[in-house]
């Protein structure tokens, strides 16, 4: 049952060294504030799951928090490569995380299977693709009716998932709108789920009957963190900060620049700082 907490407490209570954790949000609603809090708390030996690791995992990898990465697209969206991830995988700095790489279809199905309580997902995938030879978690299952060999991957079952959403109501139910991505699956697949939200409203009475709502009893903690998705965006609240994504390409290019940036913008910062970061990106809508 959802507890309303400050982000520091919610991260401390729900994320532990050695956990398997997903910070999800597909381009939209990426939970940066939660990730920064995890960085400040210095968690280690994490298995980081995320379809599109992008900047948020580049930062955690660069800080040496990742024991293993599970992902399907490790790029800086619209910009290029992830330089901290590259430095870790190519040069072992600051450590060399184990890599479990999938396709988007596989990850999406694996989250769905996790939410559905299944041990694995089957799909028509990886035909002729090289990942099957380098990832032992890609297997084949024969359809018992047609004999077709389908791809199988284990379900994703994080110890804890972090997502960002637009709204919670006073009971702790959570509303995600727009590009809903993999949010619902990430929450339902996890043992624990922490949700940061833009705001808390009285109720969802005016929301569409079939909107994506996560009932309060699927969530462990709700934290009000306006701007908490920055430099990603929250539809209806503020736009994507593309300049920050471009800037990251330069910050992450050099280890010392990276460390200095992390000290200033993460280690010495706090969740409340996110509101200021999106002030100039707030849309009229």
């Amino acid at each position, binding site marked *: 049952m959802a507890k309303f907490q400050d982000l520091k407490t919610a991260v401390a209570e729900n994320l532990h060294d050695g956990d398997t954790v997903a910070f999800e949000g597909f381009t939209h609603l990426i939970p940066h504030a939660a990730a920064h809090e995890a960085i400040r708390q210095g968690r280690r030996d994490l298995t980081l799951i995320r379809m599109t690791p992008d900047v948020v995992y580049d930062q955690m990898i660069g800080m040496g928090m990742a024991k293993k990465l599970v992902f399907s697209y490790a790029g800086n969206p619209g910009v290029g490569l992830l330089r901290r991830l590259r430095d870790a995988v190519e040069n072992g700095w600051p450590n060399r995380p184990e890599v479990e790489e999938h*396709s*988007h279809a596989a990850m999406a199905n694996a989250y769905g299977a996790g939410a559905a309580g299944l041990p694995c997902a089957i799909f028509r995938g990886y035909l002729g693709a090289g990942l099957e030879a*380098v990832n032992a978690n890609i297997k084949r299952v024969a359809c018992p009716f047609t004999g077709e060999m389908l791809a199988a991957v284990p379900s994703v079952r994080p110890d804890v998932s972090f997502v960002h959403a637009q709204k919670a109501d006073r009971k702790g139910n959570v509303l995600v709108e727009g*590009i*809903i991505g993999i949010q619902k699956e990430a929450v339902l697949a996890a043992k624990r789920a922490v949700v940061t939200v833009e705001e808390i409203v009285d109720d969802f009475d005016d929301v569409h009957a079939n909107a994506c709502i996560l009932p309060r009893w699927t969530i462990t903690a709700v934290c009000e963190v306006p701007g908490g998705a920055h430099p990603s965006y929250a539809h209806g609240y503020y736009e994507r900060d593309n300049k920050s994504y471009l800037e990251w390409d330069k910050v992450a290019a050099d280890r010392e620049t990276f460390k200095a940036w992390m000290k200033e913008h993460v280690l010495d910062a706090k969740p409340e700082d996110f509101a200021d970061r999106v002030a100039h990106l707030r849309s009229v809508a």
Partner: protein
Amino acid sequence: MSELGFTPNEMMTIAAARALKNDDVCFVGIGAPSAACNVARLTHAPDITLIYESGTIGTAPDVLPLSIGDGELCDTAVTTVSVPEMFRYWLQGGRVTIGFLGAAQLDRFGNINTTVIGDYDAPKTRLPGGGGAPEIASSSGEVYITMKQSKRGMVDKIDFFTSFGHGNGGSDRQDLGITTKGPTLLITDLAIWRPDQETKEFTVVSMHPGVTRDDVQETCGWPVKFAEMVEQTPAPSDEELTTLRDLQARTKAAHEGSGRGKNQFGSQRDG
């Protein structure tokens, strides 16, 4: 701008736009594919359905998105679904007629690498990886590929099979049990290529205005096959050029206006 009145990039985008039909359902990458699809929508194919893998179906953005998940895509979409639904019901369900892919490395059979340069376990360069590509390549009715030609990009042997095209050619694709057509079109900044009916090797069928056979060969890492009859790609029409340039100007203005930076790596496919 060349003396021709358009750039090779513009020609590439417009040639790709022309290949799209009004009733196509197109799975769109970012950069050149996105521009091409939207030019098609704004010219001869007003009813084309554009799908971005973030879950937006039937989008009609006024400006080009910088990521596959920009809010504009959702605002203008017929509907926006979850990512699992996108890959299950829409891509795997066989609803996509054209999958548009870019490539870091491409071979003559349309196999694509966006995963690693060098060995997978000890890569020289760790690239972003496949994202949606492995299943876009196998589940879309056909695959169109766009990329700028270079010897580094168009190679004799790719380092990793991120997505499967025609394998080593011939019937390799159907031998694997894949029932879709795979790469049927390659559009570069210099030429239009189609697979040979038998060997499946990409063959130049049309060269853009002002381009020579030497130009094509010098920027390609394998010995280029030319069709018996190589046509000249019609130059962009005024309408096509105006539409593309207006779209890019709107895009630039919108992104600068909102504090967004210009996307200097626009041709990078985004997941």
